């Protein structure tokens, strides 16, 4: 079956512009995560959605970052007024359930964001 997809795969934007990154999770997965990964580094947690519960936004680095998940499926991560330090790969993952259960996270290929 289809895995997690993300679009665009690459995005180059000018400093100060807004960007939207999209994630299509695996159908039926109730949990969705966004992570950021700088070159050669580990994963930095950004935000977590679980079903209809309020999202866990504790990892968002500033109020320029926001995310939504419509209809419990597709998610969009929005970065406003982009800065050069926002340049990274943004990874989305989904799983059957989230908090406290050892379920597998299925990752998308990521969106590489470059802010010039």
């Amino acid at each position, binding site marked *: 079956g289809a895995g997690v997809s993300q679009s665009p795969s690459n995005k180059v934007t000018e400093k100060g512009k807004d960007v939207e990154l999209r994630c299509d999770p695996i159908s039926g997965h109730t949990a969705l995560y966004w992570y950021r990964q700088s070159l050669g580094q*580990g994963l930095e947690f950004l935000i977590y959605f679980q079903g209809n519960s309020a999202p866990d936004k*504790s990892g968002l680095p500033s109020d320029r970052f926001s995310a939504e998940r419509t209809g419990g499926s597709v998610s969009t991560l929005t970065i406003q007024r982009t800065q050069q330090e926002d340049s990274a790969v943004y*990874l989305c*993952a989904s799983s059957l359930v989230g908090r*406290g259960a*050892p379920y597998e996270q299925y*990752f998308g*290929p990521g969106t590489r964001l470059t802010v010039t």
Partner: protein
Amino acid sequence: TQLLEQSPQFLSIQEGENLTVYCNSSSVFSSLQWYRQEPGEGPVLLVTVVTGGEVKKLKRLTFQFGDARKDSSLHITAAQPGDTGLYLCYNSGGSNYKLTFGKGTLLTVNP
């Protein structure tokens, strides 16, 4: 606060060598997962360990969960270039998502 520390941060070896990488925590894991991320792709789950002292094998990879469930190791026998990637441990039983992934070990296996 449970922090995951992985070591070494970088490892470069020749094909055919053996290696071990580690994941340690100051607190007990209820469960732990290892993921591998190949260049340009998202991480992929290798194994989940739940029971203290548990050993799991996946071909040439051997995963061990410490008796006290505060540490884990991944041993690769006769490494191959295809093993190259970033190895990440993940606190799959954690509730603080900011602290659940380690920073990873970047392994390069040279032919």
